[in-house]
């Protein structure tokens, strides 16, 4: 079974600054998928970014980018030019190769301060 660990329960960042959220995972699979989801107070889970394990290039999506270290089983999210609307819970998730289920970490609460 896979496990996903987010070691930072809470983080804060000043508006316009950069913040990095950490995620580590444990799996015996060689092909899998990793995701970062954002859950604002409205509770809707929104996809932020996705990474295929077979790709060496780190995924980017506008102000969001990841640092994927497969050997270290690490998948961190960097948010550049933080905005007030980035305030939310952020969840790291592991997707197995069968596509049946996502395994989530415990989440990191991010507060962007003006």
């Amino acid at each position, binding site marked *: 079974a896979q496990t996903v660990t987010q070691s930072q329960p809470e983080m804060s960042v000043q508006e316009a600054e950069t913040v990095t959220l950490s995620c580590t995972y444990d799996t015996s699979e060689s092909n899998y998928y990793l995701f970062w989801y954002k859950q604002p107070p409205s509770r809707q889970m929104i996809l932020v970014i996705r990474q295929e394990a077979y790709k060496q290039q780190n995924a980017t999506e506008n102000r969001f980018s990841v640092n994927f270290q497969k050997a270290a089983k690490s998948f961190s999210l960097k948010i550049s030019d933080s905005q007030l609307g980035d305030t939310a819970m952020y*969840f790291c998730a592991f997707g197995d190769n069968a*596509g049946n289920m996502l395994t989530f970490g*415990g989440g990191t609460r991010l507060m962007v301060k003006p």
Partner: protein
Amino acid sequence: DAGVTQSPTHLIKTRGQQVTLRCSPISGHKSVSWYQQVLGQGPQFIFQYYEKEERGRGNFPDRFSARQFPNYSSELNVNALLLGDSALYLCASSSRTSGVGDTQYFGPGTRLTVL
């Protein structure tokens, strides 16, 4: 295009009762997954259905059941409710065009409170 929709938004039940939650996937998506999110934790996988067949089941008791209809909508049923079943229930849909690594898109959830 409409996203994943869920009903009802909120629900209050008492212990021992039964509840049915409903989900409509994004148009064109044939797979629906259900997750339970207890307050302060990450979501936990309950079920996945694809083409009306169960394709995955998480570590939940038999009190939890689900089904998928020909239009790909889905229902999650929970019998003999316990206080610990109080949670946000999330539905997610994916296209499963390749069957692997499909991104799951989530609905707004149903908040279930068991008194």
